[in-house]
């Protein structure tokens, strides 16, 4: 059980959507990141899907479902004016080549240097392999890497750690972390606590965060 109740996943996604500027090309990973898309509809933001689509539309339902049109999470999506398709080599040239402005990914753990772990959960018991997918390419190529995750595990341990115990996806790449309890920025001095869930104190957040937090001068409630 989590010690504190915080934002539901959809609202973490809403907070992240506010961090994305108009005119951005954005790649959304599986899980909470996918939900960010729901809050970007109508915005001047183009979603890049690594399967090979730019300007991915909303989820498809009913008669709009086309078996040849899915996103990288294997969900039926739609095409909109200005959409384009391309192959995987082109898709990862965009990603690795630094053309994607913002990438949002989930994680098992993030440390205060901006290293993160997302591709393999050792408890699955598959030694040496896992689903890397496009996570390592995206982490290397993204201009801004935002992590969306619950603040603690189901058993209450901090997912913000001083040392990763899960295998790393990439090192020194994370810019900001959005959890159900807080918004933090990775800085050269450590994790800067910028926003907290209304009603909680800095001490509350620190009690469920392994690394020592630096407190922002303008610390505020999570802005929605």
């Amino acid at each position, binding site marked *: 059980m989590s010690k504190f109740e915080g934002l539901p996943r959809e609202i973490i996604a809403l907070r992240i959507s506010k961090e994305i500027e108009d005119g951005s090309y954005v790649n959304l990973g*599986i899980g909470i990141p996918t939900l960010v898309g729901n809050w970007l509809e109508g915005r001047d933001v183009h979603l890049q*899907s*690594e*399967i*090979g*689509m730019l300007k991915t539309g909303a989820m498809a339902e009913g008669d709009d*479902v*086309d*078996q*040849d*049109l*899915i*996103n*990288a999470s*294997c*969900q*039926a999506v739609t*095409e909109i004016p200005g959409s384009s*398709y*391309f*192959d*995987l*080599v082109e*898709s*990862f040239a965009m*990603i*690795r080549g630094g053309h994607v402005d913002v990438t949002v990914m989930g994680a098992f753990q993030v440390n205060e240097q901006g*290293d993160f772990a997302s*591709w393999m*959960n050792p408890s*699955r*018991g*598959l*030694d*040496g*392999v*896992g*689903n*890397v*997918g*496009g*996570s*390592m*390419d995206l982490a*290397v190529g993204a201009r801004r890497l935002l992590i969306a995750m619950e603040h603690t595990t189901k058993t209450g341990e901090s997912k913000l750690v001083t040392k990763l115990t899960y*295998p*790393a*996806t*990439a*090192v*020194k790449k994370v810019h900001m972390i959005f959890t159900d309890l807080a918004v933090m920025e990775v800085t050269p001095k450590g994790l800067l606590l910028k926003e907290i869930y209304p009603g909680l104190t800095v001490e509350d957040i620190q009690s469920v965060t392994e690394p020592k937090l630096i407190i922002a001068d303008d610390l505020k409630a999570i802005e929605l």
Partner: protein
Amino acid sequence: MNKVFKTIEEAIADIKDGAVIGIGGFFAAGVPRTLIQALIKKGTKNLTICCGSGPLLGAYRELDGLVAGKQIRKLIDSYGLFRSATKGSQNAFEQLVRSGEIEFEVYPMGTLAEKYRAAGAGIPAFFTPVGSGSMVEESVLSNIKEKRAKKETRVINGQTCVLEYALKLDYAFVHAYMGDEEGNLRYRKTARNFNPVMATAASVTIAEVENVVYPGDIDPDTVHTPGIYVQRVVHVPRITFDITNL
């Protein structure tokens, strides 16, 4: 130059045990299901199957068929395991990966795309920053300990880069929406994905095509895969499938 084979059986007849076969598709989209079904029927064994992003999770019935026939020796993919650990633990393929009866090798998706591209473009190996600082930098990701070959690295412009090798295929199975008799192909929407690059990486590319047309019927400006990469074309009906939950 008419590359059309009358039957799918003829199109795959010369594939022998031990072949290295690339399979296009990304989860459910653009998977050459009919070719894989023919390969299951043929029963060819000891295969190395090379994928890009889980086409055999999308075409899960075909994965079950290959596994049941004990046809796979090794699978290469970036995302080859069911997302759900529970679903995975009940899956026959994953059980054989756990026991080591099937060798499973993993690369980051973009690196894998580039390994096929390099093979098709005559580049033996390349340096990439992807995977630096992770297990990918140290050695090949494999379920078999002895197969975890050390990787070479080099610091380029201050960034540690990993040396990755081209991945050459004996055969590639690709799925196209339209193809002419000379092997020019067009794909549809996100069913394109890994198909074009797989076609370049193989000695023999076999395209299953929903609509076979005459040369000239495809506007040359809109050809995705030029015919030089395609050796065999076979017509297949359009199959309806579920977009599965992984």
